[in-house]
Each structure stands twice: as structure tokens, then as C-alpha cells.
């Protein structure tokens, strides 16, 4: 419980500040737009958080998001139907995770190193993929090339993003709903099934888990697969929501945002800690903070400072709450 008090408080403060900043900020359409962004961040954060729980880290996640988004666009551009492209892209993500997992568990290369290399590689792969499109993919250009994808793509966007098929107006926070559903699934596995126990055990002590008969390598690989698959789903969402994407910066630094969300939500980078609820809350922080600086009309130059200090403040308060609760429980 106390693990999420801090982030909960931070969110309350941020939302209060947001609503106070401008009469329009608290209106449903703005809150929906924030929630939608939170949903997308959240989906990726879930993946990052699971990897962190088993004591790993995934720096390639942002690049995978970008690469998946580009791949999604390119596949459809090459005539693959949107409904077929979605599972293909997720399969791509799963394969990436599988490779990461194998390198980490079989060849025993440090996760930080494997995934840092992955970050370069998949950023590059995205660029290579997008070469025929001059580095830019977007829904409009896909539809221009394949008129017949107009309806399915708009339906997909309606379902996954919540934007009106007609003019792209945001109607409901579909991405946030998706996040809640996925967090439910992740939470079920994490908190209710044997797998979750194994992940926590591995994160805290790989040796103890191994001696207790847990197939550590297999579990680790699965978690990396899930992580990258969620990342590629994030890429699909990014493609559907963004007007267009540049292959050399799509998903840039998302790995850091995702890790940040996970850590704010109570995951420890030492592994073995974290809850599904915390992940969702942690992922909600950055989008509302960004929306807040947009609404306050902060100068571009102060924005990073505001974001950095707010997060630091949140982290400190969170830690203090945790320490108090440890003493007084």
C-alpha cells in the first residue's frame, strides 16, 4: 500500500495544479486527451516494469516502440491488411524480446548492455525499413497508397485510440481503457498466479529461485517477450495516434519514460518489487505533468527544470513516506 501513497499524492497535486491552471484544463476533453496519452505510456511502462521486477532492464524499449510503429506503417504500405499487420507487429516485438532474453539468459550478457545495443540496432532497423518512405510513415500516406485500408484503419483507430473515424476528433480515452485492461491482465499474472511469484523470486534472488525449482531462464525470457510485445503494441498505438512518425526519432527516450513510470510506481531497480496498480499510477505522472506545463504556458526553456524538479520532489516525498511507514507499521 505505502508503495503507492507517494505517487498517488503526486498525482493529486498535479491534477489539482492542472485544474487550477486554466478553466479549460479541467474540462473532459482535456482530461480525456491526457488520459489517452497516459494509456499509451502505461502500456509500455507495464513492459518495462515487468522486466524491472525480474531484476533486468530494457533500454531498447523506446527503439522497439519506434521500430514497431514504422514496421506497422511499412507493412500496410506494402499491402498487408491493417488487421493482419497488428498481430505481425506484435509478433515482431515478441521476437525482439525473445532475442534479448536469450542473449541475457544463455550468453549471460548484462541486460543493460544487450538492450543498449538493441537501442542502436532497432533505431537503425527503423530507419532502414522506412527508407522507401523517405523516413516518414503516417496513416494518411498509408491510406493514400491503399484506399481500401481507409475503413479498417479508421475503425482500428477508433477502437484503440478513441478518435472519431470521420475527422479524428478524440472521443474517449481508448488507450487508457486498454491500459486498464492490460494492467488487469498483468496484475492477474503478477499477483494471482505462480508466474508472478516466480518473477518476484527471480528479481530478489535468482539463485534462491533456481534452487526452488523455478526455471529461471524460461521465466526471464518470457518476461522479455512480454515486455517487447507490449512495446510493439505501444508502437501500433503511437502510429495510430500520431499524425506521422520519423523513423529516426519515433519512440525516442520512451525507455527512460517507461522506466521512470515503473520506478515512480514503486518498482525497485534492484528487482523483486512492484505492483500493477503502481505501474498504472506511475505511468500517469509524466503526461499530466507535460499537460500542466503546456497549460501553464511555461517557456520551453524552463520545462525540463519544472519536470525534473517535480519528479524529484515526488520521488523524495515517496521515499519519506515509505521510510516512515517502515518505522511505524
Amino acid at each position: 500500500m505505502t508503495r503507492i501513497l507517494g505517487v498517488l499524492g503526486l498525482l493529486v497535486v498535479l491534477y489539482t495544479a492542472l485544474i487550477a491552471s486554466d478553466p479549460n484544463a479541467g474540462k473532459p476533453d482535456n482530461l480525456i486527451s491526457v488520459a489517452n496519452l497516459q494509456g499509451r505510456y502505461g502500456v509500455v511502462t507495464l513492459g518495462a516494469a515487468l522486466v524491472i521486477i525480474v531484476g533486468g532492464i530494457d533500454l531498447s524499449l523506446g527503439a522497439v516502440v519506434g521500430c514497431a510503429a514504422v514496421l506497422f506503417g511499412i507493412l500496410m504500405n506494402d499491402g498487408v491488411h491493417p488487421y493482419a499487420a497488428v498481430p505481425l507487429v506484435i509478433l515482431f516485438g515478441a521476437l525482439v524480446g525473445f532475442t534479448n532474453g536469450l542473449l541475457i539468459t544463455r550468453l549471460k550478457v548484462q541486460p543493460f548492455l544487450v538492450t543498449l545495443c538493441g537501442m542502436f540496432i532497432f533505431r537503425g532497423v527503423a530507419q532502414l525499413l522506412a527508407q522507401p518512405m523517405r523516413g516518414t510513415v503516417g496513416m494518411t500516406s498509408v491510406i493514400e497508397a491503399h484506399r481500401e485500408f481507409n475503413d479498417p484503419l479508421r475503425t482500428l483507430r477508433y477502437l484503440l485510440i478513441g478518435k472519431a473515424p470521420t475527422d479524428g476528433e478524440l472521443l474517449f480515452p481508448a488507450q487508457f481503457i486498454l491500459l486498464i485492461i492490460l494492467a488487469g491482465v498483468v496484475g492477474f499474472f503478477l499477483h494471482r498466479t505462480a508466474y508472478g511469484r516466480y518473477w518476484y523470486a527471480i528479481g530478489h534472488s535468482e539463485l534462491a529461485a533456481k534452487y526452488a525449482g523455478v526455471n529461471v531462464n524460461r521465466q526471464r525470457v518470457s518476461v522479455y517477450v512480454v515486455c517487447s510485445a507490449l512495446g510493439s503494441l505501444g508502437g501500433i498505438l503511437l502510429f495510430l495516434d500520431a499524425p506521422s512518425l520519423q523513423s529516426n526519432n519515433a519512440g525516442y527516450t520512451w525507455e527512460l519514460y517507461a522506466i521512470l513510470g515503473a520506478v515512480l510506481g514503486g518498482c525497485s531497480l534492484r528487482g523483486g518489487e512492484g505492483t500493477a496498480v503502481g505501474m498504472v499510477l506511475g505511468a500517469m505522472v509524466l503526461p499530466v505533468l507535460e499537460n500542466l506545463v503546456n497549460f501553464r504556458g511555461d517557456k520551453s526553456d524552463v520545462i525540463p527544470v519544472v519536470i525534473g524538479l517535480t519528479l524529484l520532489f515526488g520521488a523524495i516525498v515517496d521515499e519519506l513516506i515509505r521510510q516512515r511507514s517502515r518505522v511505524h507499521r
Partner: protein
Amino acid sequence: SLPACSNKSGKIKIAVVTNCTAEFWSIAEAGATKAAKEADVDLQFRQLEKDFDAAAQMQIVDSWVKQGVNGIAVSVIDPKNQTEDLTRIAKKVPLITMDNDADQTGRLCYIGINNYEAGKAVGRLVKKALPKGGTVAIFIGDTKSANGTARTQGVLDELAGQKDATGTPANHPVNPKLAGKQFGQYFLVDGEAKQDGSPTNASPVAGAVLGRVQGLPDLCMIGLYAYNPPAIMSEARSRGMLKDIKVVGFDENWLTLKGIADGEVIGTVVQDPFMYGYKSVEALAAKARGDDSKLVKDPIPYRVVTKDGGPDETINGLLVKFPKVADFEAKLRDDLKSVGK
């Protein structure tokens, strides 16, 4: 004290968003600030910190629409794919595109140069520097951006002397190990513009290319982003090659201007960021008061800055100015001083 509250106080509010963070845009911001003061409007000028991220840009524009600003100017990142969103926005708020256009959106007007034509101007500077042909390399931050593509193609078309030039793959006549493409009399190293991705990486990229062409005759290095010419000069200097190469630039980096004054750079083709900012705000402020007369009808002409300057010329229907570097720099400093930058 929050700027957003001033809306309620009745003051007109204009917002401008760029496509990245750069000194170029700080100059534009100066122009915008000046116009805002003159027109007595509130200005929110946002340099996009997530460079060339169209989704982040739309997020910002979106929150402005929700705040009820009276006019928005956008440096469009991807015209085609941003059209749907911008069309929707243009229906709600007066919208101007600047620097990079999206013409199917119902925007009120476009403020900017024609990048392809500006690229051709760069090509002409190269031809002037190496009239008998030679070896060229092009450096750019991003080969894929809309303005980058147009600029590069302009240069190459001018060098090749034909439209949509693709060049013929070739090995360098003097050093056959060097692969590239031939555009007319000009050999382009590696056959493509060298992309560095960010200013930090510009020097190593330029340095290596200089290292490869060291010793070859008739060299011209072309820097198409503002930070490229200084990086080229610095690397050439550190390899002792500055005297052996010609440099042609783009945009008004101070070091590029200094290089022109010192005779190290042939010339640079400049846009007019100060005007972009100024005219965007002027036009939107007027529009908010029901006055359409300030909307810009024609592309803003590019200018070619060289050491000695030259008379105005009409090229492809555009009246192009050829200012002297000293005059140009003085004017720029005045502009910036006028808003305390």
C-alpha cells in the same frame, strides 16, 4: 499571474510552435516578440523540445485549442500526415503555417521560403566556387526532413543541371577507392547527403569525410543545417585543410557569417527567421481583430549572403537579395537588440 488567465482579461493570445529547438527559432522568437509588443497581444512561443516529433507538436497545439487561444502558427513537420489534424484545428482556430507548409489544411497563409529554390541557390554558389567541377560533400542534420529533402534536391539539380537529378554511381576519378555519384561535373562523396542526426555528431562526421578526401583537388563542403558549416570549418581547421577547401553554407549561424567575413566560407543562403516570427504574429493578431490584410500572400524570398554582396536579381520569379555579410550581420543584430536578445 498565470498567462492563461490573461485570456479572461480580454487580451488577445497568439501561440507559435516550432519543429525543434534551435538558435534559428530563437531569432524567430525575437521577431515574434517584437510583433506581439507592437500589436499588444499575449504571445506564447514554444520551441519543440522533442525535435521533429509531430505527435508531441500536435499535443501542444491541442492544449492551446482547448485554452482558447486566438491564433496559432505552426512549423509543420510532416505536411501530408498532419493534414487531418491541422484541418480540424484550422476549423476551430485561425491557423498559419510557417517555415514548412501544409497547404491542404485550410490554413490562412504560409510564411516561409521555397526550400527547393534555396537549395538551387546553394548549388549556384558551389558552381561559382568550383566552375570546372570537383568533389563535393553535403552535410545535413536529417536527410529525411521535408525542408532537408527539398534543399538537398535543389543543390543536386543545380549541380547536375537537370530536374530530379539522381546522379550516376561512380568512383572518384583521382581516388578510385572513393565511391559516390556524379552530378554533372561534380562528384558527390558517398552519393548522398551525410546525415549526422544532431549537432554533437556533426564534427566527427565532417572530420571523417575530410579525412577521406584529403589531398584531392577542387573540394567543396556544403553544410545545409545551421550548425553544419561551423562544424566543417572547425574540423578542416583541426586537420589543417581549411585553405584547401571551399565551404558553402545555409542559414545565419554567427560562425558561418564570420567565416564569410574572413573569406573561409564562400557564402550562405539564408531564410528570414526573424520575419517568420514577426509576420506570423502580426498576421494572426490582425486576423483576431478581423483584419485579413496582414496575411502573407507570397513566399518570403531567400537571400544569398556573401562577402561582397551583389545587386538584387529575379530568379525563377523570385526577387532575390544578395546582401554583404557585414550589412546582413549588422541588421540581424539590430533586429535582435530591438527585443533585448
